[in-house]
């Protein structure tokens, strides 16, 4: 039975239509597997081969992968939530109540978004500590570590901007206190706060700015930096697996 299905599946992969999309046809040779990665616009950011040692769970605990996974869950659940959310005062709070009680699966989506957000912040920190403790930040991977720190800051900023959107007491006062800390920055603190809030207090302008930051600007920037982060892994010689790697010829200093 399974053989028959496999037969049909391979026949499908050999049709003209399928080959016009996927090029390589049926088969599981090394060539086919290489093409699966190399000729895929999403996957070809990764290399065709990777070190087997880096696949062991104890090496990375898959924390980087999991962080990316939470980011994707957040993007999907976030976009769906956007369909029922108006970023205006006080409509935003009414929409939260709607999502909770009226929208089908609304409470589930909102919960998923919230818990994934907490999980992502936690995973990002865990990933940073794991990379540090196994020494995967050392040359030639220094710059990728810096990209990672930028991604950490982006994650925190994304979480901060998202926190205001429910427009409840928790949100309002957490952001008020946060923006007052911002005004403690010397020289341009007050101006920075004014620009971030679009006004002197946390009100409708602030909600709209945080909404645009949270849903458009920051995700795009994060996406760019994630792409660079993955690209650098490849360019720096693949995932660090713990053993000394072949050195280039040493120069002075």
């Amino acid at each position: 039975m399974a053989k028959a299905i496999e037969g049909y599946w391979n026949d499908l992969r050999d049709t003209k239509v399928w080959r016009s999309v996927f090029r390589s046809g049926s088969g599981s040779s090394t060539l086919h597997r290489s093409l699966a990665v190399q000729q895929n616009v999403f996957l070809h950011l990764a290399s065709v081969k990777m070190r087997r040692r880096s696949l062991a769970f104890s090496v990375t605990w898959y924390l980087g992968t999991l962080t990316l996974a939470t980011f994707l869950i957040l993007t999907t659940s976030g976009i769906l939530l956007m369909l029922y959310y108006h970023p205006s005062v006080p409509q935003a709070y009414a929409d939260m109540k709607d999502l909770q009680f009226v929208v089908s699966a609304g409470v589930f989506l909102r919960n998923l978004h919230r818990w994934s957000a907490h999980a992502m912040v936690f995973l990002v920190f865990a990933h940073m500590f794991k990379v540090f403790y196994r020494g995967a930040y050392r040359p030639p991977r220094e710059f990728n570590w810096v990209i990672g720190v930028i991604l950490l800051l982006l994650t925190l900023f994304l979480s901060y901007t998202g926190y205001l959107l429910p427009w409840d007491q928790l949100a309002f006062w957490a952001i008020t206190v946060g923006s007052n800390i911002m005004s403690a920055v010397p020289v341009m603190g007050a101006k920075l706060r004014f620009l971030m809030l679009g006004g002197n207090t946390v009100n409708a302008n602030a909600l709209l700015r945080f909404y645009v930051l949270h849903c458009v600007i920051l995700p795009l920037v994060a996406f760019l930096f994630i792409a660079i982060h993955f690209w650098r892994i490849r360019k720096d010689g693949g995932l660090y697996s713990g053993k000394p790697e072949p050195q280039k010829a040493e120069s002075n200093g």
Partner: protein
Amino acid sequence: MDEPKPFRATIGSDSRKEPLRVAFVTRRTSPQVKADDDLYVMTWPEGIFRALVACEVLALVLVTLSLFWDAPLEGLADPIQTPNPAKAPWYFLGLQELLHYFPPMVAGVLIPTLVVIALVIIPYFNVNIQAEGLWLRDRQKRMRIFGAVMLALIVLLLVFQVYAVLAPTLLIGGAMIYAARQSSHEGRFHRWLFHRPLSFWIMTWFLLTSSLLTAIGTFFRGPGWSWVWPWSE
């Protein structure tokens, strides 16, 4: 048939016609190139399948959480009513706890900026790239520097009464002193500690401090940011 020509090495003056290649072989380098003996596997399916499994486990956990526990939603935002206590999300609670001890300029701007700068320059410190143990060389001199820095830190923390940071500092300091002991009958753990570089100690201190501050801010602070015991409710 002919005698092999005598070999003569010269250095030409025109580097375009006769480019120079110079390799410095130091004491610690073997001129033999290390062969790459790692085993490589195909990303598809080995790597991607494993990543997918990890993502599925994560999705299971998150979906289960979302089905059974609701995210909090308090009353409508009221600019006149400040809730008591007004707490930031958990990843900022460590910072909010620091705000209790230091003015906003220090705890809110200075310390986070210094932390970010410190994180960024970690891999650019050429000092300990081989990750050799802190106490391996110059033991006496390093002990003295360590003593001075620890004393300054402890005094600073005591003056500002930041006990939450003082405790991990003392713990890490104690561990470093223990690691520095040169005794022959210490066990595997001591030997492992002995070989930890300075970057390890600093990062572990940072991990312990931030975890403790966050835990205090989450569980031990009540109305007016006063100290509460979480079990006395």
